[in-house]
């Protein structure tokens, strides 16, 4: 691979470390009685934002009480990110195209796993309601949207990447760009 490609891969790998410090995903909630809005941020190792207020609202309809300890992911994610970054740096040092390809595959698998995991938790929270909940609406479930907008009773919910999410997409885009460049300008190696 060209030296410039290797530098780019190394930079992309190190950029992954940013995800350890910034929010990766966010869910925004808006309703007439919350003109200032409520939000939940997901970091690699914790939740932030109006967690307690959202829990307070959720208990009427029997959704589980959200707190950091319930998510084993929070213990694993930072280590996983560091491992990915290390692998990326190794791939850059190695300089082989297949290493870059494998890195891309690994990162994609990681992204898919993260989305699937989020969906799984969302499904669990939205469907597994306390049978003793004060308010029961027939056939109503409260699964938040995976990405984008969804109306939940009188709340508008938006689920979008936060800084970390965009960094992750950026890293993916950069690596794909490097890969395409390598194939295009150096097709035989």
């Amino acid at each position: 691979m060209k030296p410039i490609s290797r530098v780019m891969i190394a930079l992309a790998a190190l950029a992954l470390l940013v995800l350890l410090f910034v929010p990766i995903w966010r869910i925004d909630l808006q309703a007439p009685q919350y003109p200032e809005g409520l939000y939940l941020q997901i970091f690699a190792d914790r939740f932030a934002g109006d967690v307690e207020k959202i829990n307070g609202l959720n208990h009427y309809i029997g959704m589980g009480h959200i707190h950091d300890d319930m998510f084993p992911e929070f213990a694993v994610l930072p280590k996983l990110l560091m491992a990915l970054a290390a692998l990326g740096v190794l791939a850059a040092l190695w300089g082989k195209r297949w290493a870059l390809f494998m890195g891309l595959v690994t990162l994609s698998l990681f992204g898919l796993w993260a989305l699937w995991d989020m969906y799984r938790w969302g499904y669990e929270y939205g469907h597994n309601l306390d049978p003793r909940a004060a308010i029961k609406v027939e056939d109503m479930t409260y699964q938040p949207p995976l990405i984008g907008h969804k109306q939940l009773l009188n709340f508008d919910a938006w689920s979008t990447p936060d800084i970390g999410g965009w960094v992750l997409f950026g890293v993916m885009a950069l690596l794909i760009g490097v890969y395409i460049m390598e194939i295009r300008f150096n097709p035989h190696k």
Partner: protein
Amino acid sequence: MKRPLLLTGTASGVIACAFVLLNSLPGCRPSGTTKSVVTGDAASKVYVKPGTHDEFYNLVSGGFSGQLAVYGLPSGRLLREVPVFSVDPESGYGYSEESKGMLTTSHGFIPWDDSHHPELSQTDGIPDGKWCFINGNNTPRIALVDLGTFRTGSIIEIPNSAGNHSSPFTTGNSEYVVAGTRFSVPMGDDASRDVPIKTYKENFKGNVSFIHPEPETGKMSIAFQIVTPGVNFDLSHAGKGPSEGWFFFSCYNTEQAYSLLEVNASQRDKDFIMAVNWKLAEQLAKDGKGKRVPGKHHSNWWNERTHSSETTVYEDVLQLDPKDHPGLLYFMPCPKSPHGCDVDPTGKYIVGSGKLAALIPVFSFEKMQKAIAANDVEGDFAGIPVLKYESVLHGEVKKPGLGPLHTEFDANGNAYTSFFVSSEIVKWNVEKLEVVDRVPTYYSIGHLCVPGGDSKKPWGKYVIAYNKITKDRYLPTGPELTQSAQLYSIDGDKMELLLDFPTTGEPHYAQAIPAELVKPREVKFFKIEENEHPFAAKGEKETKIERRGKEVHVWMTTIRSHFAPDNIEGVKLGDEVYFHITNLEQDWDVPHGFAIKGAANAELLLMPGETQTLKWVPTRVGVTPMYCTDFCSALHQEMQGYVRVSPANSNVPLTALTVSVDAEM
């Protein structure tokens, strides 16, 4: 023959008039100019669309209610009534164990007062939106309301004083707020106060106090008092700009009468405006030139961490005697029984309003300084030099109206003076002393207010009249009618009436400030982790119950939508129960209430993160319900519990319990 004709003529005239009146046509009585002077687009100028905010906060004294009311301008909507000097069963202010201390004085617990003059704290002579001071006129006190929470932050009592009227006007950086005594009284310890009233001239003294609010905490203490001859002090204002460092007080009863003041204190053609060199006084106090004299007083402070009041009792106070310190006080003659004493935004002019005078005298600070330098005096009053009227006068506004009371200013060199007897606001040019415009008020205006109108930087835009009587302006509600304010636009050349709005209590003075200076500091909730109340339960796990002899203490929490615990047993007749309740919510505007059947004091309103204590002494055996009084959620009505009270000799164990449905099934 002439007489019957005349009678017939009169009778037919009366009939004609009646007919005309029945047909609602004008003609036989003076056509009222007082009824409708509102022009077509006035409503749109005071209309604040749903979802939008008013432009100004208007902080209006409650008068005999002892409170401070908060209105939005230009809508005139009442937003809040802040309990200051009077107890408030709605919130438990003055009833909860923690807040009782706010209303203690050297006379004991005084749960009421007569609050007259709000004054905003200032930075560089401009209101900063941090605090609002207000006086208690009756039992001399000054309170500080924190505009971060719109709650009373501290109250200080003023010793050697009676009727705290010329108060609490502030210096440009709120180094001091003042308190001038309305009544002169015999001073000193109690024995020397017992003198014949007819010895007024020898034994009665006035005094003005300079109170220092600590900038960080708002704790107040009296820096010094200045003893004055026995007169009545009415109003005051601090100098600014060139007159910075001076304070001006209007005084009446220079006749030194003590009976039938209506007549006996209205004899002299001129009373005085007293000028105080407070920078000099401050220096004298610092240099130890004052004397500590007896003067027991309380300074109460609300601690937002412990959610409790703290009281410091002072036994004495530092006094300065102007006889020992030439240059400290001067009198400026002012016609006649001056009431308002207002300093214009440039600080060059002092406007005296002789409430019985047919003119408005405007004094020049520059001329006053020259007169002092030249010793241009016409004599002395009880040892205080009296400067020559003509030497200190900038000029007089001739024939402005009847009964001038108070003056506020705009940013364009105009003054607005309220006239009680002729019921009007008169706009005049300060430099030229010419009347420019006048507008009627309904009825009997007292104070008036322009946003920032007594500061260096008036925001102008409106003048608000505060009226004593309203007669036909509103639906009548018995002999007592609502008090009222009227909002006028002062943007154009002509003042324009925009709105009437009713007010609580009797509105005396008021202040107005752009909302943008207040809103950003607003406290949304108290952080539970910063709660240092000795009986706080910072989570349901910390709730408990404890017997201390005849006292039962309950650490209780509230959260949407339950109390923890919600059942208490083992209380016995003869016990005193203290409910220490912590609101665990950490969200804006989610208070909870606490009320118990038969409580002889009040309910509590608990702000998010706050702890307050209600004392309850059960009077009978049985099961007593308690519940939340502030609608909190869809399950608010379910937020309740019971206390079981057993006979004095019973042995029911003291327990606090919350029972789940599962446990019962």
